[in-house]
């Protein structure tokens, strides 16, 4: 009770559990509005553009990209790291904040987890396209084959990456589905008899709200959160090893794993902010995703932004402190070389603009937060681009220095990945509850004192006294 007096309610509007159900399911019952339909068609057309571009580059070969002998990795890998990074905030919110008992996460975890899954799908596409012969992608699996059997090279960071991303996708998708079971049952129980009820009946696996199941479910949830936490750190650590295990100046640094993990969480948090600010407005969920939720997410974003900033400084400091002239050149070239503008965008967007979030006035101004989150997304895309391209394009031999510019096909593929992401996200908003209904019901009582109803008997007897009367 003491905590009730101190803590403000997490969910605004004095909701009852019934209201929570109907508020969150209302979107699913309505016919899609023009806003959703327009957004969906727009995303779908971007997706189709991307699909056409991917079909073309698979048919013709990845010679359609702007890569050359010197710059062998550029746009494609940038997009891969960008999308994987975005996924990480979903796991942070659903797993890490769960273990830290941050109950405000209940309003955003479902959407953040969905974001993770769709972002990882987008990410996974790029390495597969990059293979050039994507129909041989299954060669990454160590299966007994007719080529020897020739096994995969388990010493290669690219194989580590394959295992990391596929495990991450599987665990995230399972975590999401298991977390959704109670809500699927809610939809099943309120649906009219028909196809929808049958479909959700199958999906809900016969969930009936038995507390024995709830107890196991909670245990499972805790366990999956405990597994997902080191997993998310390992995934981006391994992504950074794709670079750090090479001997390229600018890549070959031990700071990469924490630097990449912090950057990933930062970019993901900004994507969550972007999505949530739009979703709460368009889906009328202001009572569930309140300004306080945005405020807390902004603080987290600011914290990781500072970590990213200190990584930027450390990186430059170590380059000069190392006394390694190649490393020093790589950083001078990164900051004031021909792609120095990219470095400037990265620093300004990721460390500069975000400093506004120190002020509550800024954190509660949703339009400003939205703008900052977009800037952070752009900044984080450029971070990966700068790391990848500036480290490569001026290598050890000045005679082989080269420039890089993306071709229209590469741009179309990036646009297409956004199309895929938003198409999936918009479908998610329509067909599954965007907010974890059962979890929100569990935190309704926070910061609220229950209005006491009189007991049915005329004078309520204290519980303890009654217990003594009962014959055992």
């Amino acid at each position: 009770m003491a905590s009730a007096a101190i803590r403000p309610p997490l969910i605004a509007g004095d909701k009852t559990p019934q209201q929570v159900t109907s508020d969150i399911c209302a979107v699913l019952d309505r016919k899609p509005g023009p806003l959703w339909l327009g957004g969906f068609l727009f995303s779908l057309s971007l997706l189709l553009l991307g699909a056409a571009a991917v079909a073309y580059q698979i048919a013709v070969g990845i010679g359609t990209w702007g890569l050359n002998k010197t710059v062998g990795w550029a746009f494609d890998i940038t997009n891969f790291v960008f999308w994987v990074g975005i996924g990480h905030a979903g796991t942070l919110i659903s797993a890490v904040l769960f273990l830290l008992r941050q109950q405000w996460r209940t309003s955003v975890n479902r959407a953040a987890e969905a974001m993770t899954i769709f972002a990882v799908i987008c990410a996974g596409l790029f390495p597969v396209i990059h293979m050039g012969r994507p129909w041989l992608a299954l060669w990454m699996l160590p299966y007994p084959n007719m080529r020897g059997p020739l096994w995969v090279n388990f010493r290669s960071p690219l194989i580590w990456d394959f295992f990391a991303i596929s495990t991450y996708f599987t665990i995230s998708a399972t975590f999401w589905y298991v977390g959704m079971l109670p809500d699927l049952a809610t939809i099943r129980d309120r649906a009219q008899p028909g196809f929808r009820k049958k479909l959700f009946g199958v999906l809900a696996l016969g969930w009936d709200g038995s507390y024995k199941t709830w107890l196991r479910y909670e245990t499972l949830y805790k366990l999956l959160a405990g597994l997902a936490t080191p997993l998310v750190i390992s995934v981006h650590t391994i992504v950074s090893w794709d670079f750090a295990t090479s001997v390229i100046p600018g890549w070959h640094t031990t700071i990469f794993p924490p630097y990449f993990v912090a950057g990933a969480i930062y970019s993901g948090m900004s994507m969550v902010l972007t999505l949530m600010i739009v979703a709460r407005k368009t889906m009328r969920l202001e009572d569930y995703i309140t300004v306080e939720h945005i405020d807390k997410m902004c603080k987290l974003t600011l914290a990781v932004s500072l970590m990213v900033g200190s990584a930027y400084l450390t990186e430059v400091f170590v380059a000069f402190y190392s006394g390694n002239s190649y490393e020093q050149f790589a950083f001078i070239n990164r900051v004031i070389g021909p792609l120095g503008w990219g470095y400037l965008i990265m620093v300004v967007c990721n460390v500069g603009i975000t400093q506004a979030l120190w002020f509550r006035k800024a954190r509660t101004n949703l339009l400003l937060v939205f703008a900052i989150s977009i800037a952070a997304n752009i900044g984080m895309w450029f971070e990966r681009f700068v790391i990848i391209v500036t480290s490569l394009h001026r290598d050890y031999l000045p005679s082989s220095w080269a420039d890089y510019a993306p071709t229209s096909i590469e741009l179309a593929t990036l646009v297409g990945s956004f199309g895929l992401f938003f198409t999936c996200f918009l479908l998610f908003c329509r067909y599954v509850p965007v907010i974890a209904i059962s979890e929100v019901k569990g935190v309704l009582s926070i910061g609220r004192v229950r209005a006491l109803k009189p007991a049915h008997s005329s004078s309520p007897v204290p519980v303890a006294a009654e217990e003594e009367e009962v014959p055992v």
Partner: protein
Amino acid sequence: MSRRRLLGFFEEEDDILAATRAVRGAGYEISDVYSPYAVHGLDKAMGLEPSKLPWVGAALGLAGAAAKVWFEIWTSEYDWPINVGGKPFNSLPAFIPVTFEVMVLFAGMSTVLAFFIVARLYPGRGAEAPDPAVSDHRFVMVIEENDAAFDADVVHRLLRQFHVGRVEERVD
């Protein structure tokens, strides 16, 4: 002999918690409680043992990791050793990342499957909640009546103290 159960329907979290404690404290057997969300502390009130699912995860996670280490050494050192940049065939430290991922995958997926099995959740299973409103807002307590000491009047009185909505008897 048929199974007789008394069902109490509640609307509030505090009530179901207190009622569960009181009914169990009075010596009656609560076979289950149905709730729309995981009520904190209800497991203790019902006297449920903590779930053993983490052991499944730990055992299969370690088994998966062990199998993976064996597989990596077997493929890289014995079945078809390939010299990659002069590195040793058995590059154990380089095998750690994949081993870790496989451990997490096995631990996670096996625990989920074990959960589905012990909770008997599968596609095509009909929901057996005593009230469809359980997935919305209602709490239902199921008390076994087969106990010789069962006294309906006492239980009714007890439940009413905690604002029970209605009480129902079901025989099956």
